[in-house]
């Protein structure tokens, strides 16, 4: 479907504003720090799962590659987060309290032990020292892996940014799927060909999750879904979907070729980057234009004023 046609799906609505100025503040988070942090966290989480499961099922090459990727990207994710702080020297204040109402607090308490455990596992893998402790650390990091893959979705959704907040049901699945394809992508590049089977299958499962969540986000959110379809974020997300599809296709068709598998892996990783940057940019776009704040809130007020019967599915039964 062409972009032009997609625009017409949302009817033009009139709204008033203060000199067209934004109502919300744009996120102060830096690019590439924060979208990079989102991507690396997902890559680390799924790689830890691949590493532990690979080790447990007798695939030492896959385990080694994935453990190293998990540690490297977890440490890089921490680095990106600290670099983005206005006062980086105070990064330890993140662990000053544990607040369930703050996804960044919860996330810090996931990320900090995860990166420690993943690093211990990778260090053991590299040096050959304390192999049992290394395996245990890898297993523990894999236990935190699913949370690593998804907590950043809550981090974005728990804001007033319309495109992020209204997607709070879909974003965790988009990020989980994206994390699985990223981890699979790294393994398709770095793991021995004979042990790539699980990575291939994880990639296909992740691609399915990611594409389904992206479809729902772009179609199901009405006006606030518009930034996901238009402009730079729209291009990035379309590129992400195309790369995911290419990665999935090549990973199956080229499974006998080392080179084609590596290309599939690179496509998966590029897809993960495009999707995170696209989601990030879409949020910024929805904060920049007051229509994404005013029009949905006006509709909500109008809906509350008149007795509209809402079905469980969310479809309006009777609207005068």
């Amino acid at each position, binding site marked *: 479907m062409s972009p032009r046609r997609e625009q017409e799906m949302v009817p033009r609505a009139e709204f*008033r*504003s*203060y*000199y067209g*100025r934004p*109502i*919300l*503040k*744009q*996120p*102060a988070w830096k690019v590439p720090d924060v979208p990079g942090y989102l991507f690396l966290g997902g890559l680390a*989480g799924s790689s830890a*799962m691949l590493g532990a*499961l690979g080790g447990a099922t007798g695939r030492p090459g896959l385990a080694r590659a994935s453990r190293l990727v998990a540690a490297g990207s977890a440490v890089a994710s921490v680095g990106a987060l600290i670099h983005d702080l*206005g*006062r980086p020297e*105070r990064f330890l*204040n*993140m662990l*000053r309290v544990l*607040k369930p*109402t*703050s*996804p*960044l607090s919860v996330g*810090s308490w996931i990320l900090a032990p995860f990166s420690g455990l993943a690093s211990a596992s990778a260090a053991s893998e590299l040096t050959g020292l304390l192999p049992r402790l290394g395996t245990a650390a890898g297993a523990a990091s894999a236990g935190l*892996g699913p*949370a690593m893959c*998804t907590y950043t*979705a*809550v981090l974005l959704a*728990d*804001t*007033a940014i319309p495109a992020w*907040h209204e997607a*709070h*049901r879909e*974003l*965790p*699945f988009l990020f*989980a*799927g994206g*994390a*699985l394809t990223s981890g699979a992508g790294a393994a398709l590049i770095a793991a021995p060909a004979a*042990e*790539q*089977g*699980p990575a291939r*299958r994880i990639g296909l*499962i*992740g691609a399915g*999750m990611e594409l389904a969540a992206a479809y729902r986000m772009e179609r199901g959110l009405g006006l606030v879904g518009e930034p996901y379809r238009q402009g730079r974020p729209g291009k990035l997300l379309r590129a992400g979907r195309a790369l995911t599809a290419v990665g999935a296709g090549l990973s199956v068709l080229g499974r006998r070729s080392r080179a084609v598998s590596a290309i599939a892996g690179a496509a998966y990783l590029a897809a993960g980057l495009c999707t995170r940057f696209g989601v990030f940019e879409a*949020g910024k776009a929805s*904060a920049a234009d*007051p229509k994404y*704040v*005013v029009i949905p*809130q*006006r509709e909500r*007020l109008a809906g509350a004023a008149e007795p509209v019967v809402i079905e469980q599915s969310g479809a309006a039964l009777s609207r005068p």
Partner: protein
Amino acid sequence: MTTGHTGTTGTTWRDRLAGPLADPAGEAGHADGHPPRMGFFTDTSICIGCKACEVACKEWNGVPDTGLDLLGSSYDNTGALGANSWRHVAFVEQRVPAERVELGMPGIGAPEQPQRAETDDAGVRWLMSSDVCKHCTHAACLDVCPTGSLFRTEFGTVVVQEDICNGCGYCVPACPYGVIERRESDGRAFKCTLCYDRLRDGLEPACAKACPTDSIQFGPLDELRERAERRVEQLHDRGVPEARLYGEDPDDGVGGDGAFFLLLDEPEVYGLPPDPVVTTRDLPAMWKHMGMAAVAAAAGALAAFLGGRR
């Protein structure tokens, strides 16, 4: 509701995230006998746009200047609230029938004078409004702050502890009003403190002190709400049907604002969101969906290892 009952205070964890809350300071842990909840009632119908509030705030709180920036939007050269603007006077120029210019200013001149339709001002009305941090009952900035830097004072207001803030910037997109902001020259987040230092010494905030028309009124929130109700009735009686309160309702999406307003047009005309909701109201649903996605990811990974030979 029985789930999440804390047993002692009678509030549930859901009450802590959204909905009316009688005593935010008490809920935040301040002992019985703490001061009443204090706030602002900004009556924009008597704002004259002098910006004394902006100046007094900057002077008292040592807020850096924002440079000379002519925005070309009426007399507003501040633009918006931010790290370096804790009060912001909005200026809206509207074309209206000349009779509508009478705003019912209390106690000035003879009432019911017909407007001079021949002057250049005929048919234009100016809306002026001094905006400020709303000190929400359910403050998203405070909820999402990972360091505990943002906290609820004994007056029920919301303040940043600058010696704790590490500049993560999470409060910035969390605020449904676009108030709090990271100061680029400093790296930390800043906003109105409702002059916490002055309140502790029994003084009123600098902006309210400086306001020459009492458009900015400071006091216990309960009293301000009553006063505001009376003022709206008075304006309606004087033929200003468009007068309405904004942010005074404890049943709104943020549990009511500690700083609320009397407006003469829709909130969005002043740059305010018409129906703000604290984002953490939906946090239980977010954690739930994250849990489901995490389980799906784990199941997917397990299935991939169990499901094939290679």
